[in-house]
């Protein structure tokens, strides 16, 4: 029943979902959803640069996303504007510069919709290698950075006072995000990367009892959403990228339903014990 392209899409999509799960958790713990969005939007500038200089697409998207996050760090340090205003400026200007540059390059015709929504059904075996190779790299890095990242999510000054390096961890985290966006763009597209980051992680919160469990659950829920979305798109002949997001949303809505409140009751009981 599987076509070759469908199997490839499934393998690549699941690999990507597993990779972004832990990153997505940090994005929501640190309230950085808009940051992910900004990096994803700036990817279009990366596309334009890659066409202009005939660079590898993934490399140039990575460079632009990394440059945007470094720029953000620098502007934040100046402290003149709030982070969300800075993100708004960076996000839309990078996107618009990209579009303007593409318009000047009259000799190229690009499929903008393809970049915005990706084409998971067109992934090649080389793409799969890249997704899984890059994914394993990202996951190893996350495991390595876990403690400083988590501690600085709770309180950066606490982390620094007790000998961790929150600034360095944050920088590496941003570079990992840039890498994931560069890899993911072709598969789920610019607009859908953030949803794959955030929705499975938000779904996992309901069932998680520790940060580590939440990261693993986010990966699994993401993989489930990719599988469900792809089968759905095959069955109802709907566009694959948005179908994955709809499937993720479905899982999130399920997580809101009031079944199996066991864990929450247990927590309430133990904290009531504290109030005597």
């Amino acid at each position, binding site marked *: 029943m599987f076509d070759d392209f469908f199997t490839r899409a499934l393998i690549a999509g699941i690999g990507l979902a597993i990779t972004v799960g832990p990153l997505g958790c940090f994005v*929501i*713990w*640190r*309230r950085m959803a808009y940051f992910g969005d900004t990096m994803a939007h700036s990817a279009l500038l990366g596309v334009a640069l890659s066409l202009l200089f005939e660079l590898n697409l993934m490399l140039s998207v990575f460079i632009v996303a990394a440059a945007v996050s470094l720029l953000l760090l620098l502007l934040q340090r100046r*402290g003149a504007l709030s982070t969300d205003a800075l993100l708004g400026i960076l996000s839309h200007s990078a996107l618009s510069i990209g579009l303007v540059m593409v318009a000047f390059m009259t000799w190229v015709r690009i499929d903008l919709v393809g970049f915005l929504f990706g084409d998971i059904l067109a992934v090649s075996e080389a793409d799969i290698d890249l997704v899984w190779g890059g994914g394993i790299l990202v996951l190893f890095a996350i495991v390595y950075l876990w*403690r400083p990242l*988590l*501690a600085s*999510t*709770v*309180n950066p*000054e*606490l*982390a*620094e*006072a*007790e*000998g*961790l390096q929150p600034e360095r961890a944050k920088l590496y985290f941003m570079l990992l995000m840039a890498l994931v966006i560069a890899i993911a763009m072709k598969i789920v597209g610019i607009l859908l990367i953030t949803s794959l980051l955030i929705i499975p992680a*938000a779904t996992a*919160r309901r069932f*998680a*009892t*520790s*940060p580590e*469990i*939440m990261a693993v659950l986010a990966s699994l829920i993401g993989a489930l959403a990719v599988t469900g979305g792809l089968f759905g798109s095959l069955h109802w002949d709907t566009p694959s990228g948005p179908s994955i997001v709809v499937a993720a949303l479905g899982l999130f809505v399920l997580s809101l339903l009031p079944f199996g409140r066991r864990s929450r009751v247990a*927590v*309430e009981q*133990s*904290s009531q*014990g*504290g*109030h005597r």
Partner: protein
Amino acid sequence: MLKFRSSDQPPLVSLVNAGVRRNGRWLVRGVEFSVSRGEIVTLIGPNGSGKSTTAKAAIGVLKPDEGSVARTAGLKVGYVPQKLSIDWTLPLTVERLMTLTGPLKGREIEEALAATGISHLARAEVQHLSGGEFQRALLARALARRPDLLVLDEPVQGVDFSGEIALYDLIKSIRNSTGCGILLISHDLHVVMAETDTVICLNGHVCCRGTPQMVSQSPEYVKLFGSRAAQSLAIYSHHHDHTHLPDGRVQHEDGSVTEHCHPGDGHHHSDRHHSGQHHGAHDHVDDEDHGHSHGADCDCGHHARLQGFDAKSSDGKEKSRV
């Protein structure tokens, strides 16, 4: 009182003429103090006086823009920050909070939770804790690391009076059992922890420093606080030689007004005595208005919980106006 200090040991951390500047404004300047093993130093001062900034400079979170901060090599710090809000989306139990910045053995976690009296909350999510329970959890976390230096930024905030006494007793027993140095920041300008060795009053610079007077030595205070509290609390009498005017300028005892206040500018006691220390025995209680008066923006002395407590006449009689 147990003595862990020995003169041959260098202090855990020492600040020499340290100042921190942000956006062209000095948050705090000319700060000098040190914390040794087994010593408790309490920083007090009105809001925005640079207490937290000073503590952050001491532990290396902020770099001093002038002066220097020296820490012993490999100093292990346990830090309880003033504000800590954990996003609801982060599932974190008290037990997991313990190992936030470094691995610990299960036994160490149990001991720290037992010492702070929250063993029963080990599996509760931190977002479900009450203010006092959360402060205890943060203290347990800092304590479990077996730090050389414990830095507590307003550890009794959001804790009621009896909880405050219990926390001070706990901090005392931590010092006595581990011998660590403690840098404590207090929101209260007049009542400090009784075990404090040195009180430093900040308001952008060191306004005065000294040792607190045990509440238990005064029957009047014991009556007010209750005997248990009197063992844990102490009264600190300010001896200021200058006044902070509402516009931020400083008026000195000799009547001169300067833009800033800086040690060594010739306006201070310490310039003449070369010692900012007021010893507890030193009977030099001259505070009809505790030596300095403040503008409406300053809560030093006039709006404090224990208003009037520093109004102690020189013959030792208290005129308690509370």
